[in-house]
């Protein structure tokens, strides 16, 4: 067992356990805070995969942006004083059926992943990832980059328009 293997298994355990807490916890605040550890674990996996810029982006956007937004959403839509902070689940039959389907889907995926002979090519060793990402964003992916900026603008305007209180 070299160091990379140990680190991978530690962070994989963090991701899986905290994702399970997110999904199975009855208290929605516990779920929201457990999502924090999932995002950190995924960022650590990115570092293991030589994607340092992506790991920083993950921490900045997911933890600094999306998670804070989700926690705001939880606080704004639950009655803080009441006992309404628990979230219900659908009926027992649906839960069982969904768990069965998800398990079957995972088993199918796992068998498929282990059977397929991937054309594994070791990537070029990268000195840094920021420079190539910037180059490819402004050359190969310039159209997607511009479209993404328009999407961001529309999302900001749309979110403000939707969430605004109506003047009665």
């Amino acid at each position: 067992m070299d160091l990379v293997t140990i680190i991978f298994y530690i962070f994989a355990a963090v991701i899986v356990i905290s994702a399970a807490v997110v999904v199975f916890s009855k208290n929605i605040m516990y779920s929201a805070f457990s999502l924090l550890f999932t995002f950190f674990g995924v960022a650590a996996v990115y570092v293991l995969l030589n994607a340092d810029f992506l790991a920083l982006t993950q921490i900045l956007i997911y933890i600094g942006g999306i998670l804070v937004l989700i926690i705001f959403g939880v606080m704004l839509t639950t009655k803080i004083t009441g006992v309404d902070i628990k979230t219900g689940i659908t009926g027992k039959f649906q839960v069982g059926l969904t768990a069965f389907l998800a398990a079957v889907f995972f088993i199918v995926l796992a068998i498929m992943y282990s059977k397929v002979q991937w054309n594994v090519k070791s990537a070029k060793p990268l000195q840094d990832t920021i420079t190539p990402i910037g180059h490819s964003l402004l050359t190969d992916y310039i159209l997607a980059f511009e479209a993404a900026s328009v999407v961001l603008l529309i999302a900001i305007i749309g979110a403000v328009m939707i969430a605004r209180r109506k003047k009665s």
Partner: protein
Amino acid sequence: MNIGLTHFLILGAIVFCLGLYGIITRKNAIMVLMGLELVLNSANINFVAFAKYGGMNIDGQVAAIFVILLAACEAAVALAIILNIYQNYKHVNVDEIDKMKE
């Protein structure tokens, strides 16, 4: 046994299935949103794993950046919609929002 592509893919599959379970079984709209974030993260793990092992080099990481960007947009718009639902219904249970059915 060295860590290879399959390890990361199976990690992604576990997170995907947990997210799928959360999306389908939860009533609260914010819980559905959290399950969605799990699914998007699992897709990102796959992209970056293929970027390292599948010879996609930097293209996989650029795709993951676009996924993160769309996740941010989606979270903002979805939470705006959820706040609007809360103002109208005083709850955010997605199975009880059925005014259009009548």
